Structure formats: C-alpha cells, structure tokens
C-alpha cells in the first residue's frame, strides 16, 4: 500500500494554484490563436488579441490573469492501493491561504452566505473532489473558477429520450441566455447521466481535460455539435459580437436511471485556469 502525506499534497496544490493563476494553459492559448484566425468580426478579433496579450503579460509579470482569481477546486484521483495520511482538508486550506498571500490573489470567497456575507480573507475553503481511479498513478489537479462563469452554469433534468440533439439544444439555450455575461470565448464542460448531484461534478471535471487531448470514446460528435451551435449565437469573443463564442467542449457521462437524463453544463471562461500533475 502506498501512503501519501497530506502535507505533500498540500504543497503540490499550492504550487499549482500559484502557477494556474498567472499562466494560461498552452492548449487554451493555442485555441485562442486558432480562434483569432477564424473569427469574422473585427471587434471580436481585437478582443482575442487583447486576451492573448493579457495572457503574455500575466505570465511575464507574474500577476493574476484575471482579478477574479476564483474559487479553488482540488481534484485528487487515487491510484490502486493508495491512501492518504494526515489532515487533507486542513492541508489544502492552508495551501490556498499560502498561495493567496504569496501570489497576491484576490480574496473572493464569503462565508455566512445568506446573511452578512463575510469575506474569508484568504480564499478558503478549498473544495475537494476525491475519487478512486483504480490505475497505478495518483494525480492532483487544481481548477480556479471565477464567479462570472460559475453563475452561467446550469443543471437540467431532461426527458430520458432527449438524446444528443436535446442536450445540444439545452446547452445552446443556456449560453444564449447567460453566455455573454461569462467572459467568452467559453470552454464548456458537459456532464451527462449519473444523478442530480453527479452531473454537475462530471461537467466541472470535464473542464480539467486539455482541449488537445483525446476526448472520451463516443463524445467527440456531441462536443462538436455543441461548439457549432453555440458559435452560431453571435455573442463572440469578449461578448462584443462575433463567430467564436466557444473554444471547445468536453463531455463526461455515466449510466443513469431509466426515468432520467441529468445534464449539466459547467461554463469555463476564456481564462480557464487548471492544471493536473502526477504525484
């Protein structure tokens, strides 16, 4: 049995939080460059140029890509026969605090959410998603998600026979309603099946998949359809109007009840800040 020290996982998370806050992933940057070549609207192209210049400036100066440095989710996928020793929750919160202070991140989290709304001051707590992957590797990933894109995310319990067309139409309707408020061009994580609570987790976890990686079997056609429909909305880069509203979509799915088709869309902004490392 392999035993991992929670403090070590905390240090890995801290390093990733600092990195993702200032360095846009290379696959997202490549997608933005591709969008610049494709975009038909002059204002949309100018928005893309500013977005690309912003990424270079953040990296060069070591300042946050966006002032909304987000809520941090830590994804841990444990390999077979692997356990964790120590206070993982405490170590991850401490990692978020250290990264916030060292990286000049904005304090964007409040507690007492329905009355008072007191800023926690250090971006704690971190959200933790842990699963048993069954492979021989353990991975740790960090997703920093801003409020604007999170507010645009939705869950629907579709009729069981809605199919790929119904799912694509749902996602398109969601983005038509709220996409312009959430910093397009967007990256969409789609979670299908499972249950009411599982679908949004699948959707958000799908945002962790690099856009240049191989999509899960059987999901590529649906993802393409979603991207094409969303790009027909006309919202464009920077929400100034244009032909590229979506840079890419990733789909994750699980079996579900015969009566159900839960579908969630987790909206990622163009500043999609995420990275996964092998422990």
């Amino acid at each position, binding site marked *: 049995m392999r035993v991992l020290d929670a403090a070590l996982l905390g240090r890995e998370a801290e390093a990733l939080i600092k990195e993702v806050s200032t360095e846009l992933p290379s696959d997202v940057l490549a997608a933005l460059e591709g969008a610049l070549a494709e975009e038909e609207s002059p204002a949309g192209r100018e928005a893309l140029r500013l977005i690309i210049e912003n990424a270079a*400036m953040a990296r060069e*100066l070591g300042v946050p890509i*966006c002032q909304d*440095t987000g809520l941090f989710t830590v994804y841990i996928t444990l390999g077979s026969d692997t356990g964790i020793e120590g206070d993982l929750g405490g170590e991850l919160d401490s990692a978020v605090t250290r990264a916030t202070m060292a990286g000049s991140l904005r*304090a964007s989290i409040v507690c007492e959410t329905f009355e008072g709304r007191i800023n926690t001051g250090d971006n704690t707590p971190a959200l933790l998603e842990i699963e048993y992957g069954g492979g021989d590797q353990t991975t740790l990933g960090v997703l920093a998600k801003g409020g604007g894109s999170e507010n645009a995310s939705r869950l629907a319990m579709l009729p069981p026979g809605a199919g790929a067309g119904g799912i694509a139409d749902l996602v398109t309707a969601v983005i038509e309603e709220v996409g312009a*408020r*959430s910093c397009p061009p967007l990256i969409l994580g789609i979670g299908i099946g499972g249950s009411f609570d599982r679908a949004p987790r699948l959707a958000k976890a799908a945002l962790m998949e690099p856009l240049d990686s191989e999509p899960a079997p059987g999901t590529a056609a649906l993802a393409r359809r979603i991207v094409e429909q969303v790009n027909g909305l*006309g919202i464009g880069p*920077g929400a100034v109007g244009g032909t590229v509203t979506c840079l890419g979509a990733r789909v994750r799915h699980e079996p579900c009840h015969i009566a159900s088709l839960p579908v969630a869309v987790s909206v990622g902004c163009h500043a999609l800040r995420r990275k996964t490392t092998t422990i």
Partner: protein
Amino acid sequence: MKKLSLPLDRETLRSLGAGDEVLLSGPALTMRDAALARLSSLAESGEKPPFEVAGQLIFHAGPAPPSTGRPAGSFGPTTSSRMDGYLETLFELGVPATLGKGPRSRDTLELHERHGAVYFTTIGGIGALLAGHVTGLEPVAWEELGPEAVFRAVLDELPALVAIDSRGRDHLAEQYAIYRVQSD
C-alpha cells in the same frame, strides 16, 4: 478611438453613440454587489453614503491586491447585468455612466434614455492587461468588504466601448444579431 476625460459632462455623454470605441482617463469609483446593496439600502432609508456618487463613473469591479509596483496586480470589470437592479438608484443619485462587462438587460435601455446615461463595456478576464491602465487606487469607504469596498481608481486610457448610449441604443444586441446564424 475617442479619448475621454473623467468625470464626464452631459454634453460629452450626449455626443457618444452606441459602438464608439473610447479610452477612459481620470477618476472612477468601483462599486459591485456588496457596496451597491449597501448604497441601495441607504438610499431607501433616505440616508447618504459617506462619499459622493453624483457625476462619477461607476466601475463594476473589485481589484486584486497590489503587485509588482502596480496599485492592483490585476483589475478588470465584473458582470454588469448583476447590478441592473441598482441602476435606477445610481442614476437617481446623479451617476451619469457605468463601466462593466457584458450586456445589460433590455429593461435598462429605457432607463439610460430617461437619464441620458451611458454604459461602457470592456473585455472581461484581462485584468493583468487592464491593471496597466490604472495608475491609482485608494479605498474610499466600506473597507471591511475587502475587494468589494468602494475604491477611487484613476484610469489611464482604459479601452472601452459604448455599449448603451444616452438614447438607449444597445450596441451589443445589434452585434449579436449580425453574427447570429439563423436556424431553420
């Protein structure tokens, strides 16, 4: 590209048309969710906030901390439509213009027309770049709100676009209609 000095006078506001590209320079006040909720409840009870909002450009934003010699390491707009419910209060208090990201709801077009007010939009998610167009930043009130406190930000040629002009014309909605693919 029109270079505008803040605060904006009514004549300048009337001269702006939906879609105009502008560079904003001068002082603005940051106000977002928590500060606007406070301002609104003060206004409801007939009280005044501890700062002057009349004539000010209200920037819907909350800065990241100072970094690398900049007053904010990263600083850019938040979603304006979330603030739509406070817009009438702001206009009644004499605010002539707001700055944020994304479209505002259709209900606000008539409000802009009635008050001769303008809504500027700038690109969201590029706070590292936009912070380079902010030369000063100091808290004005409600510091306990952290990044949601009211700050006076001094802008230096911050690039923006007239999204809603003083006649209530909605530039973004017009652009979306142009690039929208008609479904059959």
